[in-house]
């Protein structure tokens, strides 16, 4: 026996059973640490819940600003409102401000007689208003979504003209623009990113993979304002030279650059799903004489198909929500047109370009928040769908139980005589 061991063996005297029992009776029931643990956990729970709350708050506060227009309580009709200067004292500065088209603080700082004069002027202006459209409330749901024949027009049209004599808030052209640009972006981005994903995850050599994968993922690190800048300064003039298009900034340019913003998303998720297909599937195909290409297309791709779909769905969500590229490169004309070389205005571009300039609480402001909520709902359902698909895929690919996760399967790994010297050990080394 090791002499050092016997020498030191007596240092720790084992407790007698009675002593031990006495010690345990106090030690094991010590609750302070449990209480601290409990409080820590509760605290962390509350912080985590703020994330869930945030999603709700985003929807709530974006929709909140649009509530009057959603429930038809906003009215832009002007004929009926004529203000009596004598009643000024009884009106809030906000009401007067709205009538005059000024902010309440400006109204408050004006002397009473100037204010009365301004109100008279405004009354005269309104009386002169000959356009019958001025009597219309342009913020009803039908005016915002259905075509309308404006006076002077020959046919009903969809019009988004929030600034001008008559404010027109039909947001169908904006949705059309968003979908058009998104579609162009997806048509460009989907094939090329899926091809790259298959190549990188299945066909490329280890070295190539190490090189290409990060460089495609890094495309996501280029800020969208820089992409927009490139579209505006480089691509658009270049394409106009080559194609001779009518407008320099159009949905094609925007879609093309938007594709660059979407590619990393589609690529990353598709590549992840393809790589998550167990190696054994591929090995089985290879062992039967299939080439890497056949194994990739016939075995791995079908197994990862849901993930690839989810990648495209998420790409859609990203593209429709992208702001800076489209606001800089799409031309911002809210027209309904089929040509991909016409300018468009998307939902995001409208919000980004118009919200900073709209008066808080005005009809324009409310309608912008309304289309913001619509956009939020679109992306929300897109995300939920993609997540559902990915969740299903993950479950079908793993199927691990809780007990396995917690290392209770070690037993199984080491059970067979061959694995007795640590099956799990080998797995981690390889």
């Amino acid at each position: 026996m090791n002499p050092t061991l016997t020498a030191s063996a007596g240092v720790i005297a084992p407790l007698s059973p009675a002593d031990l029992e006495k010690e345990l009776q106090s030690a094991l029931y010590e609750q302070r640490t449990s209480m601290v643990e409990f409080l820590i956990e509760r605290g962390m729970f509350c912080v985590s819940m703020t994330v869930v709350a945030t999603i709700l708050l985003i929807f709530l506060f974006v929709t909140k600003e649009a509530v009057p227009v959603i429930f038809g309580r906003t009215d832009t009709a002007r004929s009926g409102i004529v203000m009596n200067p004598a009643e000024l004292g009884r009106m809030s500065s906000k009401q007067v401000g709205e009538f005059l088209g000024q902010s309440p603080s400006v109204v408050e700082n004006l002397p009473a007689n100037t204010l009365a004069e301004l109100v008279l002027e405004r009354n005269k202006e309104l009386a002169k208003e000959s356009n019958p459209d001025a009597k219309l409330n342009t913020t009803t749901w039908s005016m915002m979504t259905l075509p309308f024949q404006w006076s002077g027009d020959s046919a009903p049209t969809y019009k988004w003209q929030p600034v001008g004599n008559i404010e027109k808030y039909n947001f169908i052209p904006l949705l059309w623009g968003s979908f058009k640009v998104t579609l162009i972006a997806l048509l460009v981005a989907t094939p090329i990113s899926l091809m790259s994903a298959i190549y990188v995850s299945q066909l490329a050599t280890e070295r190539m993979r190490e090189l290409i994968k990060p460089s495609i993922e890094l495309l996501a690190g280029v800020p969208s304002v820089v992409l927009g800048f490139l579209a505006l300064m480089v691509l658009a003039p270049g394409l106009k030279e080559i194609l001779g298009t009518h407008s320099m900034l159009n949905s094609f340019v925007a879609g093309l650059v938007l594709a660059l913003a979407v590619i990393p998303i589609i690529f990353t998720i598709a590549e992840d799903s393809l790589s998550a297909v167990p190696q054994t599937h591929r090995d089985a195909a290879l062992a039967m004489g299939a080439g890497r290409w056949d194994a990739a297309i016939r075995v791995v791709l079908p197994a990862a198909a849901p993930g690839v779909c989810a990648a495209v769905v998420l790409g859609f969500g990203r593209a429709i929500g992208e702001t800076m590229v489209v606001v800089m490169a799409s031309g911002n004309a809210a027209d309904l047109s089929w040509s991909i070389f016409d300018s468009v205005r998307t939902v995001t571009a409208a919000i980004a370009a118009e919200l900073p300039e709209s008066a808080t609480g005005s009809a324009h402001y409310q309608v912008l928040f309304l289309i913001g909520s619509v956009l939020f709902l679109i992306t929300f359902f897109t995300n939920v769908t993609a997540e559902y698909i990915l969740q299903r895929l993950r479950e079908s690919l793993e199927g691990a139980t809780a007990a396995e996760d917690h290392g209770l399967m070690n037993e199984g790994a080491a059970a067979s005589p061959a694995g007795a010297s640590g099956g799990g050990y080998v797995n981690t080394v390889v």
Partner: protein
Amino acid sequence: MTRISVPLNLPTGLVPPPDKGTRMSVRLGPVPVDEALAASAEQERKANVPPILDIHGLSLFYGSTQALHGINMQIPRNCVTAFIGPSGCGKSSLLRCLNRMNDFVPDMRIAGRILFQNQDIYAPQINPTRLRRYIGMVFQRSNPFPQSIFDNVAFGLRLHKMGNAATIRDQVEEALRKVALWDEVKDRLNTNALNLSGGQQQRVCLARAIAVQPQVLLMDEPASALDPIATAKIEELILQLREHYTIVIVTHNLQQAGRCSDYTAFFYLGHLMEHDTTENIFSSPREEATEAYINGRFG
């Protein structure tokens, strides 16, 4: 975790283990002569000591699967008890119940009770983290922290505030001496423990576990990932540590159970088939299944 109460089963008495000298032994290294003499007296003393762990009607469920079926057994103080059985028989699960490491498995439910020195460790007021200071554990794969050897062994001491900087140094040295590692590492206590060999790492883990002076040491196949020489060292340590600790060891290696345990419990499909002195289990098992397993007919 939910808990179902079941009435107390009366423990079945255990036959005291035979004298150590006559124990079926494939022990490594020479057996000192005086040890054999002292052993019989000590044996007598042990037979009268109440068990340190007393398991009553313990059933364990992971979700809808039942991993243990009404286990009743007593684990005697200052002895080595080996759990053997084919894989999936629940021996590791039972081991993890003994210091409530199973608490971390979601969907785990337990019925029955485990008494540790007459304290029901699944009683609601029990603080499981305090329990684990008294019932330590060594895992299948050595898992030293990516810190220095010294910090590894001192981890538990600092955690439980067992002493100041100076006494911790002594305690670390003592723990390392107990696992026969002191001479090997005393000049490089500040190097990363992950740079040691597999066997040394496992001994660091052992030292880390005994540094906090637990009453019981649970070992979950402590040598299964080690080479034969390192395994022999661990077994030798188990035999020495028995003097001060109650040791429960799960093993797949029947020779190992035979070499270093006093009692052996054989599990099969979540049932405790047989629990007796190691010699009885190996030489004259009462159950057919035990005999089949011992003779390598299954598992």
